[in-house]
């Protein structure tokens, strides 16, 4: 029986990869990933209608400067150097193209950008280390209020925040940062890939009227269902890893691999979790793989329920579209939290590492602790439902 299972898996894979649409979709996704990874290299900056520098040159310069600052604490000394450098810029239009900017300010551009996010203009010109970290705390507290968190949640988050080491150590982590930010793009691509490739695993048997032949064979019920499930899940997981790899290789070639140990707060300053960017990316990647399983089961369940591959595609693509355009306000606490649990909303630096907490037997789970359990449970429930539907399918209504 075990050998039969693997032989069934081979046949299911054969059916899957003989569909032109699978190859076309995989090809298109690969091209999109490469394009997204390289997109910042294209184009030029213009001053007075003339090319000032290409984006590629600018990126190389900025990364070189950022690397020179790597390992330094974001403290008064570094802030002062940045402020002095920026103070030497002339007070003229297009000061960003001046020689002074290039010589004195640009080496500190990465620090300026971070400080500017925290305190804005003109405070960056004179802010001290203490004021900057206080400003960050104030912004975090403000976020908690706007998210309607209760006192227990705030206390839990404060405890987590206390574990974050300060001052932050600045580290050039461009490659990891861009990868972290693009995890959401991979999630969207993954969902579309699954929506296109997975439903036919079940629906083809109905559309080709093979169901009546299959369901009256010895292995056509449970063993075939398990083989189909295995093929769907492994295809989704492996193709997600493939998309991640296709994105990662050009990103690391362009931006470098350094900075995995940088504090997550350098990428998302409102984050209170004591994690490094490398850890955050691996958590996102792990979550993406669990989401692949969940999305696969969902696509299979829909295709078996509707005996169609078009309806699941429409529903799953609709989820992507809706998540792009619909945002549930924080006032509707439960609804908003449920909406944020939709994988394409959650699998992102700003989603999974948000301040939203999930009550759990007197304590709280963070989104990155709760979400994998929820998706796995939903996936397992969906697989059972799908099996129930598959097993009980009746070939009579044609």
């Amino acid at each position: 029986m075990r050998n039969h299972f693997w032989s069934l898996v081979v046949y299911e894979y054969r059916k899957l990869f003989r569909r032109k649409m699978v190859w076309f979709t995989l090809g298109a996704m690969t091209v999109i990933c490469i394009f997204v990874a390289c997109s910042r290299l294209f184009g030029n900056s213009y001053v007075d209608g003339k090319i000032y520098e290409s984006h590629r040159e600018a990126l190389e310069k900025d990364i070189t400067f950022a690397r020179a600052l790597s390992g330094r604490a974001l403290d008064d000394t570094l802030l002062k150097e940045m402020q002095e450098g920026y103070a030497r810029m002339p007070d003229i239009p297009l000061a960003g193209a001046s020689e002074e900017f290039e010589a004195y300010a640009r080496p500190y551009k990465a620090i300026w950008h971070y400080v500017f996010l925290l305190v804005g203009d003109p405070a960056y010109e004179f802010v001290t280390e203490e004021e900057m970290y206080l400003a960050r705390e104030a912004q975090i507290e403000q976020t908690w209020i706007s998210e309607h968190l209760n006192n227990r949640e705030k206390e839990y988050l404060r405890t987590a925040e206390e574990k974050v080491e300060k001052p932050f150590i600045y580290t050039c982590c461009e490659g990891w940062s861009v990868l972290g930010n693009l995890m959401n793009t991979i999630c969207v691509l993954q969902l579309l890939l699954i929506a296109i490739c997975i439903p036919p695993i079940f629906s083809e048997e109905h559309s080709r009227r093979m169901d009546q032949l299959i369901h009256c064979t010895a292995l056509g019920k449970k063993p075939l269902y398990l083989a189909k499930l295995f093929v769907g899940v492994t295809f989704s997981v492996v193709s997600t890893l493939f998309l991640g790899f296709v994105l990662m290789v050009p990103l690391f070639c362009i931006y470098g691999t350094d900075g995995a140990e940088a504090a997550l707060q350098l990428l998302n300053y409102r984050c209170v979790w004591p994690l490094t960017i490398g850890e955050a990316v691996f958590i996102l990647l792990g979550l993406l793989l669990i989401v692949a399983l969940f999305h696969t089961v969902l696509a299979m369940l829909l295709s078996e329920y509707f005996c169609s591959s078009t309806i699941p595609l429409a529903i799953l693509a609709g989820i992507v579209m809706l998540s792009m355009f619909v945002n549930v306000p924080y006032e509707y606490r439960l609804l908003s939290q449920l909406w944020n649990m939709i994988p394409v909303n959650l699998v992102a630096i700003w989603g999974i590492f948000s301040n939203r907490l999930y009550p759990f037997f007197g304590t709280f789970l963070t989104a990155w602790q709760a979400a994998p359990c929820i998706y796995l449970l939903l996936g397992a429930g969906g697989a059972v439902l799908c099996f129930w539907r598959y097993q009980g399918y009746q070939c009579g209504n044609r």
Partner: protein
Amino acid sequence: MELTIDRLTKQYKNKIAVDRVSLQFKPGVCGLLGANGAGKTTLMRMICGVLKPTGGTISFQGMDVSTEEYRRSLGYLPQDFGYYPNFTGLEFLDYMALLKGLPGSTAKRRSQELLDLVGLKNEGKKKIKTYSGGMKQRLGIAQAMLNRPKLLVLDEPTAGLDPKERVRFRELIEELGRENIVLLSTHIVSDIEQAADRILMMREGQMIFDGAQKDVEGRLEDFYLEQFGEGEETDA
């Protein structure tokens, strides 16, 4: 060896497709005749376990229709079914053999044997999408026989076959019917006339005739038309 159908009923909302049918089958070829909508295909689907009856039971040598053991003894050729167009004939048979639980080496040998038997030996490595309707039908017949079924259910098996192929198929059925139960539904009365030991006629979900050739007075086709009224369509 016995297939027992006891008060088998299938009811859709306002229509009873099969109405309390009770039958027993022993080895031999049994032909099922009936007009369109008589309930033949519904009955066959229930016998094959792909359609759940509203009431009644089906068992083969004591095995319930829902069991894997029952399905291991079964061969089924549905009235209308598709194929995987990108599979070759041989691949399709190998896949069906696998689903029927045949060991790998046996499956390969049996697939080749059956391709030869249905006259597709030279076409086995061609993709099914290049097959004609008759070739597909022969491939369907081959897949039904892969597991040497003790219970063979054939719904319109001769549709699309040319006269020569039909004769060959009839001979095959007769041979299979010596040791196995073969249930055959067709709208071609002559197929049943020549191959079936027992004839069943169905109308509006009920059996209106169950007997042997000798019980029919005169030609079967005339008898059939008589049962259904001469003006009625004779397609099953």
